[in-house]
């Protein structure tokens, strides 16, 4: 589904990603972990098409197409979703209006009929209730005055509405208490399916108790230094990120 090959990315001349390789098969959940500044959020931003990143080398293909060549809205319509680390407040536009525009843009792109106001509302209610949010939230301006937890749940709601093929969750767990974390994880788990994949970017192992990944990758200084299964996350939790730089990187450099 997603192939990242030797991806080198810089921001304003500063190298952030130094050769990322990542293969995501349909139906799998990949966790990308790593210390602050390792390039996790850059990877998420580049996949979603945020401005300001220089692709110096490498490629990203999504279902056989060049993802980097697509505008952000085309990526979304093709089925890529980014749950923002810091969801943006947009005063003056209600979540309802926003999501209806979004879902119909996506449906149109996929050759599906647009949803009427009634159909949209029915779907929105279905998707919002399991997240512990009231349908009233739809009438509020996008993320305006939302608590941190509400913003993250709103991201999951949007994901549930748009039904992406590939969802990238950028530190969706950061700042959540355990109850909110469970709600978010349940939201993600309920969307897991044989043809939908997730890239879960997180700083903490805690989330992975609830969203159990098929693969765990450790990003350090712009490279994936180590990949493994869910047990790698547990090891990181007990040993911290320090040993990656102390042991794994020198070994790799020595060709061990």
């Amino acid at each position, binding site marked *: 589904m997603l192939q990242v090959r030797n991806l080198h990315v810089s921001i304003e001349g500063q190298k952030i990603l130094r050769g990322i390789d990542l293969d995501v098969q349909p139906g799998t959940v990949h966790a990308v972990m790593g210390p602050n500044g390792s390039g996790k959020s850059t990877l998420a931003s580049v996949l*979603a*098409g*945020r*401005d300001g990143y220089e692709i110096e080398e490498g490629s990203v293909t999504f279902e056989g197409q060049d993802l980097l060549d697509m*505008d*952000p*809205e085309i*990526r*979304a*319509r093709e089925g890529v*979703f*980014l749950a*923002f680390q810091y*969801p*943006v*407040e*947009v*005063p*003056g*536009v209600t979540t309802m*209006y*926003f*999501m209806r*525009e*979004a*879902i119909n*843009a*996506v449906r149109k*792109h996929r050759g599906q009929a647009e949803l009427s106001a009634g159909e949209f509302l029915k779907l929105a209610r279905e998707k919002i209730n399991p997240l512990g949010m009231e349908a009233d939230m739809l009438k509020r*301006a*996008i993320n305006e005055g939302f608590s941190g937890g509400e913003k993250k749940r709103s991201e999951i709601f*949007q994901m549930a509405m*748009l039904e992406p093929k590939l969802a990238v969750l950028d530190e969706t767990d950061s700042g959540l208490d355990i109850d909110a974390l469970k709600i978010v994880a349940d939201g993600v788990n309920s969307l897991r399916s044989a043809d939908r994949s997730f890239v879960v970017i997180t700083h903490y192992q805690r989330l992975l108790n609830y969203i159990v990944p098929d693969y765990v990758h450790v990003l350090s200084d712009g490279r994936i230094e180590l990949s493994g299964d869910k047990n790698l996350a547990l090891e990181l939790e007990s040993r911290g990120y320090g040993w990656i730089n102390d042991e794994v990187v020198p070994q790799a450099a020595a060709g061990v």
Partner: protein
Amino acid sequence: MPAIADRTDVYLERFNDALARSADEPTWLQERRKRAMERFLQLGVPSLKHEEYKYTDLSALADGQLLFGTRAGGAETALPSYAAGGASDRATGAGPQVLGHVPQGARVQSLAEALLSEPDLVQRYLATIADYEDHALCAVNTAFFSHAVVITAERGAVLDEPIQLVFGDGLRDSLPRVLIVAGRNSSVQVVETYAGSGAYWRNAVTEIYAEENARVDHYRAQVESLDAYHTGRLQASQERDSYVSSFSISFGAAVARNDIGTRLNGSGCECSLDGLYAVRGDQLVDHHTGIDHAMPHCNSHQLYKGVLDDRAKGVFNGKIFVRPDAQKTDAVQSNKNLLLSDDSEVNTKPQLEIDANDVRCTHGATIGQLDSEAAFYLQSRGIGADRARNLLTYAFAADALERIKLAPLKEHFESLLLNRFASQES
């Protein structure tokens, strides 16, 4: 500012014709017209050297051709009806079309009718509220207007439905003149719409007199031809405990200049002067407001928002006078602008003159650009770049639009704004 004398020849010629045509008008009105003409000849069409017009080039109006010349015919453009009930049974002679049912307690009359039915009232207020001594464009209107609409609400009359005046193509609508007199405890809503085609100059004057505890909600929706000049003056005079709101929508015209003011003559008055302008190409839109706080315990609010694209220019100048007697004045002024292009520009200037010491006056002006992170957020959900831009533009204007209490009017301009800056739909 001295006018170039020979360029006003056309005005002078036309004035003699106009006087001859209005020979049956009462003497007092003819005297006011003559005085206005005298003042206009002294003042001339304001040039860029005039402090109040330094960004707004009206030199094309100096010779009067755009006002008096023959109009190139074009497709009739019009704004929809915002009033219930369609065309009114009230005719106003050859004046503008009147839409909306005129309810019990109100009158919508032509000047000729009003001079017969309410001569004292007309004499008291017509051309006494909007100042033609110091304002050349108001002087032109006063000297030359051929038709006027007089809207009166009886004491205690509450008009639930708006009255809409439609100023369209045609010479008869070049010099709109409206007088609104709201009697004690009455409430009236008036919408003036301006639309046309081709090149012309429309120069409108509306006077509002709000008696004690009266309420007047006034809207002007201007979508003139993009080759037109639109100048308009709205001047209100308020007695104690009265409320006047003005909402100025300015989307059209090559050059639009709106002067909007009110004088708060009694304590406990409130006014809300608001506006929304959205311009592009080489359009220029200029709002000058003036609120005269003459008495204590009055509140004034102003919110003007502007969206400018391409090479469009915006001007805002907001004057607030707080006279020595006007203690406990609460005046709030805000002008916010969104620039969608590198070449658009705004000149905004608050001008506060405060001669009382126990008052609260605040003002703020902002000029900003679209939030690129918000645009990316919308795009990342599948919304096209153009659509995202329009949604954010709409969002920027939303709080100003909220001040339009008239739902059909609000909805119409909401939808115009949502589609205004799209080069292509996604």
